[in-house]
């Protein structure tokens, strides 16, 4: 049953892939540490380069997954030191992490968060190894109708869990799916929404879409962040980055509980690290905050969201690798990256492309060890990254975005399209939209339509096929239940502190 993992370690331990796992971990931590550049931006910027370099699919995926998991480590740096979350997953880390740094405990806080991240990621990777093959075996039985129902379930789970406004999440997802319909219709060869532009015949290019939506809109948003006043600009003294066994044991309950919460939320399609961090923090606060120390620098309040957001990152690979349904915005981007290689992740991947699925999982084990080894002694070095001024960072992002898109076809149309999408992304973010649903809709839209049409072809046009099987009926009921639940149990959902400019992973 674990043959894929043995083969995977064979793939992941080749010098090239080992080097890429290391590079991904390093770059990911850097990207996570830089405020404004989260995992999606990091992947968006580097994906075209990985593609140009001619890396094989599994190597590219190992590099990009390393960036993803690394960014979840790096996000804590600016949360703890500057009270600015480096990415959405680290929002809750500010609540107790920054007070600790203010008390002069920045070093221990960084050390503890690295250990919590490691624990969370390890538990979730073990869970991924155990559950992914099982789920893949179930998913082999899925037909087009089941997949269609599953995608509907993914979108409804996302609408409920993500962001403060379910309507806007749903609109974002619909817009994403609509964007995916641009181009030649695969069934009939009819042009849809191409307006006679040959550049749009193949649809809106994935790289153009990702870089425009995330990198360009980020440049525009950064202009406003530049003059925010709730932010410390001076780094507090770091001290020694060290964590004692006593502190780890004090937080072990928080770490273990939050790791499980994070993993489960990560597995749920459409919900990512920010939700995991929020749920873990509020749960831990309810369970352990007897003296009212949470929010004033309680170690457990730091360990909980850090364990959870790293666990959810690994957990979100479960639906992506087994069902082809991403568990988070970032895995949606990774899924799109795999599609560039003509690999459609799904239940057959474990049997047909074990080197990709296994190699990725094995590299997560390796990357996690590398990250712990990098983050404990080198936290001081990474912290220095935070002092890179915006006037260097922003032009650097612009150059990477332009080169990344230019090298696709060596023409300008793609660049203009990227800028238009960037403005669109900026407006959406200003209007309180999260971009993760848009990207999830864009990545899944094509598959969603294909599965729907295939199902109806099988049934000869009878829509009843969509809920005929037990699995699909169950998924429809689960999707409906998720949409109704928030009205029935309003107290079940914790208050989520989410600021508009912070993008979900």
């Amino acid at each position, binding site marked *: 049953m674990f043959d894929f993992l043995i083969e995977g370690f064979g793939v992941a331990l080749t010098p090239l892939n080992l080097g890429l796992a290391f590079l991904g971990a390093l770059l990911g931590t850097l990207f996570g540490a830089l405020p404004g550049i989260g995992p999606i931006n990091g992947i968006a910027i580097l994906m075209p380069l990985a593609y140009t370099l001619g890396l094989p699919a599994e190597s590219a995926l190992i590099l990009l997954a390393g960036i993803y998991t690394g960014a979840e480590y790096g996000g804590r740096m600016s949360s703890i030191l500057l009270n600015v979350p480096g990415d959405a997953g680290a929002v809750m880390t500010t609540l107790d992490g920054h007070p600790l740094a203010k008390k002069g405990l920045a070093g221990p806080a960084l050390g503890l968060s690295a250990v919590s991240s490691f624990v969370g990621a390890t538990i979730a990777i073990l869970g991924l190894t155990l559950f992914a093959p099982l789920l893949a075996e179930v998913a082999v039985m899925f037909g087009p109708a089941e997949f269609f129902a599953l995608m509907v379930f993914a979108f409804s789970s996302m609408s409920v869990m993500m962001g403060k406004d379910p309507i806007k999440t749903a609109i974002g997802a619909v817009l994403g799916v609509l964007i995916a319909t641009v181009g030649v219709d695969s069934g009939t060869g*009819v042009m*849809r*929404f191409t307006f006679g532009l040959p550049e749009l015949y193949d649809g809106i290019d994935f790289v153009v879409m990702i870089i425009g939506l995330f990198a360009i809109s980020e440049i525009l948003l950064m*202009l406003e962040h530049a003059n925010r006043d709730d932010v410390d600009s001076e780094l507090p003294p770091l001290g020694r980055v060290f964590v004692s066994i006593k502190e780890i044991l004090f937080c072990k309950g928080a770490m273990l509980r939050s790791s499980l919460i994070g993993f489960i939320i990560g597995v749920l399609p459409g919900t990512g690290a920010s939700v995991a961090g929020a749920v873990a923090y509020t749960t831990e606060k309810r369970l352990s905050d007897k003296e009212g120390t949470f929010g004033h620098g309680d170690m457990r309040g730091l360990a909980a969201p850090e364990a959870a957001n790293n666990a959810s990152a690994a957990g979100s690979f479960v639906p992506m690798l087994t069902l082809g349904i991403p568990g988070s915005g970032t895995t949606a981007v990774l899924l799109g990256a795999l599609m560039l290689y003509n690999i459609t992740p799904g239940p057959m991947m474990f049997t047909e492309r074990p080197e990709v699925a296994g190699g990725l999982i094995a590299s997560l084990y390796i990357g996690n060890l590398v990250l712990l080894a990098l983050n404990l002694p080198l936290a001081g070095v990474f912290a220095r990254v935070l002092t890179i001024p915006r*006037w260097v960072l922003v032009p650097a992002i612009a150059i990477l975005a332009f080169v990344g898109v230019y090298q696709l076809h060596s023409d300008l149309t793609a660049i203009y399209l990227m800028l238009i999408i960037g403005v669109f992304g900026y407006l959406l973010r200003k209007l309180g939209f999260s971009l993760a649903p848009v990207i999830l809709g864009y990545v899944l839209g094509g598959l969603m339509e294909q599965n729907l049409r295939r199902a109806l072809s099988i049934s000869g046009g009878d829509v009843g096929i969509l809920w005929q099987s037990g699995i699909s009926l169950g998924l429809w009921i689960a999707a409906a239940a998720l949409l109704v639940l928030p009205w029935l149990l309003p107290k079940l959902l914790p208050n989520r502190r989410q600021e508009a400019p912070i993008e979900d992973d």
Partner: protein
Amino acid sequence: MKLAADRLLGFMLIGLAAFVAVQAINLEIPFSYEPVGPRAFPLGLAILLAGLSLVLVLRPGEDGHWPTGPLALKLVLVLALLLTYAILFIRLGFVPTSLLVVAALARLFGASWAKAWITGIALAVGSYLLFTSGLGIGLPTGTWLGAII
């Protein structure tokens, strides 16, 4: 009825939904054995979008903070710079265009003139070397260079 940002957005999205629907209906479809053609899916999405947008029109959320005054001007300037970058990218070549755009961007994001120029030179030349020699990516050298030689 107060005109909130969400309300405006809602109306625009309803307009988009109508546009999508009209476009989808007007698609000319060759004969096919499939029961569902390329029309149905976008049409369904348009209806869904219109319905959701109607909720937005009826129950708009808060307006949020929009940049005003000098900040809005800066925003337009950054956009204009990015557009300039795109227009000159091939004609003027990667290094000179990047140098000018990076320096201007750095200046807009608060660098002094000296720092802005140093950033421009360092990033333009450094990234050119990294991309071309390091990663083997071809970047435009500019059409003017050929005209001189």
